[in-house]
């Protein structure tokens, strides 16, 4: 290693961001917590990974992380996906914090597209990576107009979209990024989590923070916030259900990934939450495709 690379690796602040930037982000986070569901603009920085790959979540995590924290990073529910590995490595390098794949051990969990199956507890913080924070964006592309709509709680158009879904498809045809109303006031995008996870946001004892880097917005759900998925009285919100249990751990009532096993139509459904699945298998549960013979040692 040359002298200059040593400087490059060692020349960064704890968790990459400088203190000024962290203060700015923390102020935005505090404001977001004070007004649940409201999108607070913040001066997002260019990060050394591409926009759209979690730069918002990374900045939020960097701003709240302390040396004693234990970090878990998931993408699509899994700890071993490329984006999760990359981000976990980033914080291990720049903050030297303890990392884990166990939901119960983590103090901070950064996530893309899922909420862990294991219920979160008080003191835990869930950081969501958000691509498009504006739930009204696809109804009204102009920011100037959507800000006014939020300010005036002018949300009729959102229900028009849901009405159209039912008129066209017989049901609300939204499966992820399913809009919610927070504390009866702000309509919020839960990030592109499957609607399966929406009920987990409601009255969660954990603090939930949402960061959108490219769009420069932070929003939050303080612990025990009312989060209600939008619907109609006669077409109530229905979380996605799966017909079969996880093929590996036999879990039911969890979110499953479809795995293509061959090109002749073979499919297998397994837990999207890898920690949940591994924990269950370690406890002796098993599904149809896993007999439970060998457990790899999990360090």
């Amino acid at each position: 290693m040359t002298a200059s690379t040593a400087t490059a690796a060692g020349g960064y602040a704890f968790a990459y961001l400088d203190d000024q930037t962290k203060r700015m982000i923390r102020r935005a986070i505090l404001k977001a917590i004070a007004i649940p569901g409201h999108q607070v603009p913040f001066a997002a920085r260019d990060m050394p990974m591409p926009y759209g790959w979690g730069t918002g979540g990374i900045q939020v995590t960097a701003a709240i992380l302390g040396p004693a924290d234990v970090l878990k990073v998931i993408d699509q529910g899994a700890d071993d996906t490329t984006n999760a590995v990359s981000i976990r490595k980033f914080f291990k390098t720049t903050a030297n914090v303890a990392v884990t794949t166990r939901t119960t051990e983590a103090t901070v969990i950064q996530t893309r597209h899922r909420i862990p199956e294991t219920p979160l507890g008080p003191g835990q913080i869930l950081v969501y990576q958000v691509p498009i924070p504006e739930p009204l964006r696809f109804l009204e592309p102009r920011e100037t107009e959507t800000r006014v709509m939020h300010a005036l709680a002018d949300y009729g158009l959102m229900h028009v979209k849901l009405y159209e879904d039912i008129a066209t498809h017989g049901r609300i045809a939204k499966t992820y990024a399913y809009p919610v109303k927070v504390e009866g006031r702000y309509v919020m995008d839960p990030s592109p989590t499957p609607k399966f996870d929406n009920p987990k946001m409601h009255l969660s004892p954990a603090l939930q923070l949402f960061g959108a880097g490219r769009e420069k917005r932070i929003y939050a759900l303080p612990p025990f916030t009312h989060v209600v998925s939008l619907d109609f009285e006669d077409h109530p919100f229905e979380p996605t259900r799966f017909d079969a249990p996880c093929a590996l751990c036999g879990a039911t009532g969890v979110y499953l990934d479809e795995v293509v096993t061959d090109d002749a139509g073979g499919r297998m459904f397994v837990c999207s939450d890898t920690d949940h699945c591994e924990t269950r298998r370690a406890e002796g549960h098993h599904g149809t495709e896993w007999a439970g013979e060998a457990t790899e040692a999990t360090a």
Partner: protein
Amino acid sequence: MTDTLSTPLLSAENLGRDYGARIGCRDVAFDLFEGEVLAIVGESGSGKSTLLNLLSGQLAPTAGRVAYRMRDGATRDLGSLSEAERRFLFRTDWGFVHQDATRGLRMGVSAGGNVGERLMAVGERHYGRIRAAAEDWLGRVEIDTTRIDEKPTAYSGGMRQRLQIARNLVTAPRLVFMDEPTGGLDVSVQARLLDLVRGLVADLGLAVIVVTHDLAVARLLSHRTMVMKDGRVIEQGLTDRVLDDPREAYTQLLVSSILQP
């Protein structure tokens, strides 16, 4: 209840709007009562569209004010309403029928969604009831209810105007503004639309302010008529009186050139 009959629904006082040195309209004053239909007639450039925008609170006056008696009975100056109150008024107690239906409708949303939007905006959350109300209103404006899921892009010009009217009336407004509602339509389509509007206005006891350059529209729909020229009201009175016995030379010219074959 004598109060609602004796207190105007809407009052314009010394109302005016200048655009720099150019006059939009000036010194307009009138009272409009519940169930009353007022036509504002004049040529293009006479200031009638500016006046309509002032009366509906979409344009701030440079002189005078517009007072409106809210549903709670309190009379308020439109200029003092917050943006939220103004929007609420627009989706509950008021309607606005545009000459160009594409401005008054959501062209990418089905007819049912167009009619249902106001209900949802004021908190209706029962799909079945919203749909029933939409079907009811499509029927009342003589649109085949089997076409409820079609978008207005599939509708003819006359149907679009009728859909616009249904979309406005679904929240039982007390006052509807109409800007050249028959403009651009074929004569036979115009006649059918006017007939429909006349029936609805009478049945529902609506107050209407209709802007038109077509004196036949004023004749058919309105109780009272105001004639505008160069931004000012030059003559007003009962419609029959203004059209049958015009006092101003300009009105006489208008009546003779347009109404007489």
